Structures are given as C-alpha cells and as structure tokens.
C-alpha cells in the first residue's frame, strides 16, 4: 500500500505522455470492444436461439413450395410435438412503396405463442383471438408509422382478394415484441383463417409450420420424424430448428471471423509497439531516480514490480475507459445485426488483454530497471 503514492507519481511524471498513451490504449479498446463484441454477440445469439422451436417448410426452398394445411394434424400426432401453428408470409406496404411491412398470418390456436419468439400481453392475445380482422403490430412499426390501438390500417399487397382488390385493412388490437435477433422489425401478425378465406389464390396452403416440441434435446429426432412422415409424398418437407437456421445464417457471414481477427491483430501489434517504446523511454529517462530508490534500499524485485504495476494500471484503466465507450457506441455498430447486446465476457477479455499488453511491453524496461547498477547509473548524472 505504501507504494501507491510512488506508483502514482511515476504515472504522472510526464502527464502529457501518460494522457496520450491512455488515449491510444482507450481508442484501441473501443475498436476491440465493438469488433469482438459483434463476434461473440452473434455467437451468443446462435446459442440463445431456441432449439425447441422447429420450422417445417417445403423441401426445395423456403418461399416457393407452399405446403397443404392438412399436414398440420399429421405433424401434431407425432410424439414429442407440443404445438403446431400454420404460418403464411407475404409482403405489403403502408401508404408508400418504401414503407414495407412483413405480414405474418398465424392461427391463434391454444398455446400458439409457444411456437414463436414473441412476447404479447394477455389482453392483446385475447383481443387478437376474438376478431378475424385483428392485427398485432411490433412496437417498432407502431411507432414508426404512428399506429395506435383501434386504428384501421390499409396495407397494399401483391396478394389479391377474391374480388381482385389488393388493399387489406386490419384493425390494430395490440402490440408485441420479438426476441429473435435479425428478423424484420416491420412486422404485423394477422389471422390465418381470415387471410386464407379472403385471398384469391393458394387457398388451403401455408408457407411453413411452426412447431414447438416438448424437449429441446429431441429436436433432431422429431425433425427427422416429420421429414420421414412426408418423404416420397407430393409435398416433401424440410424441418429445421431456429438454432440450426441461426447457425446457417452465421455461416453465411463466413469470412467475417478472419477479418475481425486480422484487424484486431493489427491494432494490438501497433499498440504493443507504441507502449513498449514509451515504457523503454520512460525508464531510460528515470535512470537516476531509480538508482536513488535502489540506494535507499529498494530491492530489485520491488523496482521490477513498480515499473510493471505502473504500466498495468495505465493500460487497464485506459482499456476500461475504452470498453465503456465501446458499450455506448455498440448499438450503432450493431444496427446491422439488431437485437445484439454487448456481452460481458468481452469486457473481461478486453481487460485481461490490456494487462497482457502492459506486461509484455513493460517486462524488458522493468527488468532493466531491476538490474540497474547504482554506481554507474548515478555517475551518468
């Protein structure tokens, strides 16, 4: 403890230099925080994606192979299946073509929300099930387009009514949020029964089924059982869990990992070089002072630690500051993969890395300080 003032005065011996080093380390760790945070954030999102939620869609592709609604009962009868909900997706826009809205038609059967990642208040759920033309909208889109509960919202779509009109009017009965990352925020939920009856073509088909299963560990066998059930039929299926889909999506990003690692290596290499040079210079300039400390009884080890601790304090505090800044700017960088939060582990790794940088860059100067020969060091004066 008694060394604290000594360390403190060592740090502030040249305030300008310390502040600049502090800023350089901070800036490097802002970048580290944002990039590493994105990387681990995406990985976390994958592990957090639900394994007990399966999507059953046409075997060939996601969008163009509608499945007959009749498959629902057959899927429900399979062991391990808890809830099956038919889902139809189509697109529309509100007032202007730029105001796109993703329309998700679902059937609000009992416990249907188990098969989704939505959070919906009970009164909204009840209101949604009551009315055929009801719509639940994401809080985001409600705010964006100024929709309120009780509004009648006309959406223009490429899907036509039986009478040929392409304008669909829904009544907003509530809002919801979606915990799944990287899915559209411009989204509304409507009743499948109403939609299916009103549309001109494709009646009785769905885009896919959402299936909730009893045990996430059964995801693979249940998915296989579903696909086997419809193998060699006219509508073969492909069943995947949300987690598998998330994994596939991350793989699409592909070389991003390599890129982040390369950038961070360059940043750390430059940083290491700068801090090492500065520490070296600082020790050289302080040779006489260090010799005096030795004369009054400081051991080699004490001097070594003194220099090392000085470097560690500056680097770790600066890194902490940088990581705090990174947490603030993170939402800006994460807007490409929205819903991501900065993982706490990234902060811990960053601080450890800062300490490592300090160790490596201060080790040689500290050793030099420890091996100092008092007589010759003082003679230089």
């Amino acid at each position, binding site marked *: 403890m008694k060394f604290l003032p000594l360390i403190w005065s060592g740090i502030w011996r040249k305030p300008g230099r310390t502040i600049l080093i502090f800023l350089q380390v901070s800036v490097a760790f802002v970048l580290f925080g944002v990039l590493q945070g994105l990387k681990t954030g995406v990985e976390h999102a994958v592990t957090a994606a639900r394994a007990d939620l399966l999507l059953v869609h046409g075997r060939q592709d996601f969008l163009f192979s509608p499945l007959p609604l009749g498959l629902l009962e057959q899927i429900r009868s399979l062991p391990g299946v808890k809830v099956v909900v038919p889902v139809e997706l189509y697109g529309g826009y509100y007032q202007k073509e730029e105001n796109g809205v993703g329309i998700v038609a679902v059937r609000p059967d009992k416990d249907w929300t188990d098969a989704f990642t939505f959070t919906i208040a009970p009164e909204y759920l009840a209101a949604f099930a009551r009315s055929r033309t009801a719509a639940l909208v994401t809080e985001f889109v409600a705010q964006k387009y100024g929709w309120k509960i009780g509004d009648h919202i006309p959406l223009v779509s490429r899907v036509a009514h039986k009478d040929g009109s392409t304008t669909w009017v829904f009544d907003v009965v509530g809002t919801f949020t979606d915990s799944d990352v990287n899915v559209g925020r411009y989204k509304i939920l409507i009743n499948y029964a109403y939609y299916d009856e009103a549309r001109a073509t494709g009646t009785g088909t769905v885009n896919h089924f959402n299936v909730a299963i009893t045990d996430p560990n059964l995801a693979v066998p249940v998915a296989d059982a579903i696909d086997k059930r419809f193998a060699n039929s006219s509508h073969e299926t492909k069943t995947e869990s949300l987690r598998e889909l998330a994994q596939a999506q991350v793989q699409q990003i592909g*070389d991003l990992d390599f890129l982040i690692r390369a950038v961070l290596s*360059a940043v750390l290499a*430059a940083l290491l070089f700068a801090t090492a040079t500065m520490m070296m210079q600082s020790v050289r300039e302080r040779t006489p002072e260090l010799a005096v400390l030795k004369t009054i009884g400081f051991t080699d080890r004490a001097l070594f630690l003194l220099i090392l601790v000085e470097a560690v304090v500056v680097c770790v505090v600066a890194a902490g500051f940088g990581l705090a800044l990174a947490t603030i700017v993170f939402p800006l960088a994460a807007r490409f993969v929205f819903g991501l939060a900065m993982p706490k582990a990234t902060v811990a790794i960053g601080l450890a890395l800062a300490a490592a940088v300090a160790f490596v860059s201060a080790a040689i100067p500290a050793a030099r300080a420890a091996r100092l020969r008092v007589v010759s060091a003082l003679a230089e004066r």
Partner: protein
Amino acid sequence: MNFSRQFLALLRMNLEGEGARLGSVLTIVVGVTCTVAVLVSMLAMGTGAHRQAVGDVHEDEVVVQSKGAQGIQSNISRDEAVAVRDLPGIAREADGEPYVDGIVLVPFEGRRRGTGRRVFFPLLGTSDPKIALRPPAHLTEGRFFRPGLNEVITTNVCVRQFEGFELGAKREVRGVDWTIVGHYDQGESLQCMVLTDAETLMTLFGRNGYNRIIVRLKAPSDYETFNRALEANPALKLEAKRERDSVEADFKQFNGLLNFVSYFIGTIMAIGATFGAVNSLYSIVDARRRELATLRAIGFGSGAIVAATLIESTLLALPGALLGAALAWIFFHDMAVSPFGFSFKLDVSPQLAEIGIAWALIMGFIGGLLPALRAARVPVTTALRAT
C-alpha cells in the same frame, strides 16, 4: 529567402537525427503501417465486389422489371413480355427476331466444398440463351442444354465452390432430376450460376410469368426511345433500367455497408495511431531542446521551426503509408473472399493506395501540430542551461 534557408537547414537536421531516435520513429511507422494496411484491405473488399458486379455489364442491355418490385418479387406476365418485344430501339437478328430474353429465377441449393454448408443461389431460366450466354461468357466444356429435357449448364465457379456440379451429375429440383450437361465461363463474376430453359422451369414451378426481361438495344443511346415507348404503353406496368444502373442499384446497399465498416475501423485506428505519433514526436522534439534553443539564440525564426517539424512528421508517416499499402497488396490483392454470402476477389487498386497515403499524410500532419508548437516555444535560456 531567409525562411526557406532556415527551414531547409532545420528539416535536414531533423531528418539526419532520426536514426538516433529509432524507437520513436518506428512507433510512428508501425502505427501508420497497420492503419493503412487495414484501411486499404477493407476498402479493397468494396472495390473488388464493385469491379465484379459491373465487370460483366453490357452497355447496350436494359433490365425490365415490374414497377417497384425487386428480384424475385417482380412478375412480368406473358402478355407484357410479348408487348415488350415490339418496342422500338431493340436490336434484331437478320430474320427480324428481337434480342429479348425472359428470365425466371428459382432458388437452387448447393453445399460448399469442404465445409458442407448450405448456400442458395439462383437457378436461372432463360428464353433466349443468345443473350444470357453473350460473349465474353462462353461454354468451356460439354454441350448446351436442350429445352424440355431438364438439362442445365453451370458456371465453372460452381464446380470449384460446391459439391456435385461435375458434368453428368444429377441434381434434384422439385422432385425432378436435372442433369448437368455443360460448364461455362462468365467473365468477372465469381457467383455460381445455373442456367436452363425458361419454359421447362415455368412448367415445373407452375409459373406464368418472368421475373425480369433483358433487352439488347441497337445502341446504348436507344435507351431513351425504348424507355419512352415502354412508359407510354398503359398496359405495361414495367420499368426499364440500363443494366449498369440496375447492377449499381442492387449493389448500393452492400457497398454502403462495406464502406461504412471500412471507414469506421479505419478512422478509429487512425485516431489511435495519431495519439501514438504525437507521443513519439513530443519525445523527438524534447530530445532536441538544446539544438533548437541554440538555433533560436542565433536567430532562427519560430515559423521555420514549426514548418520544419510539421513537414518532418508528415514525412515520417510516408514510409508507413507505402509499407501498409504494399502489405495490403501482397497479402490481399486478388484473394477470394465470401463475407455476407457473396463471393468476390479483393481489389487493391492504385486509387486505394492513394487514399491510404492521403490518410497517412493527414495523420502525420495532425500528429505534428502540437509537437511543432512545443518545438517553436522552447524557452532559450532554460533549455540551454539544462544538462
């Protein structure tokens, strides 16, 4: 006259003394090198992707889609397609047949070699292969597909990137086996493309329209004539874009993302490296206090000292800039990458090297400002008295 002589003398003194301050100089060089290398390599993704995207553009071709729709959402009925064939400005063969190609897109699944990961790319149905396979695209192996027989040809890229695209291999689409009968080269593009007959595909998928129509004009300047006639026809809810504009529009978002990320990272790294440079320059200037004080005492002006220090710091950034650009070129030029599920080669172009060098010079200049002021303000008496 006096200023410039003082300035040159100072600059020479500064640069000759650099060898003695190797640590500080190297800090600047390494910092600038890393920053420029990262910035240039990342921007090279944008230029590479762009070069590939516009590399195969034919100036006399026009893309027609339904109004306001993008990609697979676009749907052009057969009636509309027939009407398009009679519009003015379209190039015609000797027998009067217009160069109009109706295109159908359906997703096609592939698995990457090695990793086995699943990727979707378009299976493209063409009604007029003369346009789809216009030079420089050409068949390199096998033969052309025959309409109605569920045969496809693929680019050579597919064979390299994905499993099961060899000649004679069969791929299943909608419960029907499709045979790969030929391979072709496409020019710049590294995208895997699978080509077949539009009618066969439409029958199989129960479609009754095209996703887009490609029209070849007599000359690029006929676009206005063609477009005016298209818009004048009330029966056609279509819009026409020059192929270049269409490709650029598709590409804008992707490019915006890449450039944003590149400059975001480049700026943060540059700020960090500039702090390091300021630190190094301060210690370089401090080491020179006595010389500077002596020169001030014999009549050197502070303007010359400021100018010489600024130029010195800018020059110190230069080797890092060149080294960084060179490293980016050596390691990343022509390297094939596929971030965001889109394959292309990095392109470290001379323009990017210029951007990197400009970036470095600015860093050097800004980094030199404060140290230059300190150099000019060295108090003569105390500096000379100091040991």
